[in-house]
C-alpha cells in the first residue's frame, strides 16, 4: 500500500476531518486517543494482516512510524 492510500485510510480510521501528513506527530493530533488506537489495530489486521498490541502502537511517534510498523 502506498503512502497516500495509507494516509486516507488512517485519516478515516481516526475519524479526522483534516488530512494527515506522514510527519504529523501522533501526540499532537486531537483524535489520537485510545479509541483511535483500537481502531488502528483493527486496520492493521484488515489491510496489512499485521497483528499488533496496543502498547507497541502507542510507542510510535509519527504517522510515518505507524505506516512503517504496519508494513514491517
Amino acid at each position, binding site marked *: 500500500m502506498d503512502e497516500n492510500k495509507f494516509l486516507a485510510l488512517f485519516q478515516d*480510521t481516526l*475519524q479526522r476531518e483534516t488530512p494527515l501528513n506522514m510527519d504529523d506527530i501522533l501526540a499532537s493530533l486531537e*483524535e489520537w486517543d*485510545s*479509541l*483511535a*488506537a*483500537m*481502531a488502528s*489495530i*483493527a486496520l492493521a*489486521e*484488515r489491510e496489512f494482516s499485521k*497483528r499488533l*498490541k*496496543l*502498547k507497541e502502537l502507542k510507542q510510535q511517534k509519527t504517522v510515518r512510524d505507524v505506516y512503517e510498523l504496519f508494513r514491517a
Partner: protein
Amino acid sequence: MASSCFSKVKIAGISAVVPSSEIRLEDELEFFGGDIKKANRVTQIVGINKRRIAERGVTAADLCQQAAENMLFGMGIDKASIDALIFVSQTPDYKLPATACILQHKLGLSNACAAFDVNQGCAGYTYGLWLAASLVESGACKRVLLLVGESLSRVIDRDNRIIVPLFGDCGTATLIEKSDAGHPSWFELGTDGSEHEALIVPAGQSRLPLPDSPEEYAALCERIVDGNGTPWRLIRTYMDGEAVFDFTMSVVPKHIAALLESAGKSADDIDYLVLHKANKQIVTAVAARAGFPEEKAPYSTFSEFGNLAGASIPAVICHLLAEKVCNGELNLLLSGYGVGLSWASAVLKLDRIWCSGMRDYVRPEGHQNPDDILAYWQEKLSE
C-alpha cells in the same frame, strides 16, 4: 482441557427482553464536552449509539423472567417438565439467596426443579449453554431453562464516560432439551485469572466488604479520578479497556480456530459467527483475525442496544437471525469473552427453533421500587 462434544442435546427456544426506555449518545453530550461531533466520532469508530436502560426497580431477573414467560407460553411448555433453572448474571437480586431460587417461584416451576446461579459475564451465555448441555447429555435433566441477563447500569458510576455509554440492559431465556436429531455441538472454554483486575467491582463483597458504619462506607463511595479525568468508585465497575482489548485480540481468534478444528469445520461451514458484542472494532478485528468475512459477523445489535454482556449472543440471534432460525437451519459459531478473564465458544446448529425476536419489557402492575422494598423490610423487622 474444557473441550466437549454433545450429541443428544438441542436448543429448542430463545427469547430476549429489553427495557423500553432508550438512551442515545446525543442525549449525553456532557460526556463529550457538549460537542455533538465528538459523540458522532465515537459512534463512527466503536459503534456506540443507542442502548436500553432498565427503569428504577427493574432488575436483570425481571427482564429474564419476562423473556422466560414469553418463551414458555409461546412454546406451550408444561412448566412441570423443567428439571433445572440456571441464572447466569453478575447483577443478581441479592447477595443471598441465589436469584434462580426466586425465579423458580415467580415462574411457577416445580419444587422438584434444581435452581442455581452462575457468576459469569460476557462469556456467560456460552458457559450456561455448556452447563445446560452437560446436564442433558448426562441424563441428569431432560429440559433445562437457561436465563442469562444483566442490568449492569446498576453497578456503573453514572459519571464514568468510558463505561456508561457502553453497556445496555437485557434479559434472555433459552430452552435446552434432549434431542434425537443427531446434531452434534462442540464447546471450548478457557480462563486467565491473572488478569482478573481488568474488569472488576473491587468493593462490596468479602474481599473489601461493606462496612457497618456510614463513616467507613464513605471511603468506598469516594470518587477516584484517573489521569484522563475519568472518575471511578470502588463499589462500581472498573474496566481497563486496553487490557481487555489486547486480551481479546490475542486469545479469542486462536481459541475460535481451535474450536473449529476440534469440530472438524472451517469458516466456510459456519453461516454466522455470533461474537459477544464488546464493540464494533473488537468484533470486526476478531472476525478478520479468525478468518471470517465481515458479513458473517454482524455487529448492528451493539449500536442498537449497547454491550449486553452475557446476554449479547442470544440478543443477536433474536435481533438479527430470528426469522432464519424459526424457518430453517443455521450453523453458528457463538463466542463470548470478557470478565474473569473468561472465554467460552460453541459450534452448533439451530434448526427451526422457537425465537421471539427482541421484545420490550412490560412492567407488571404493583412492581416494587427500592423505596417500597426498604419500607417493607423496615416494617417487617421492627414488628
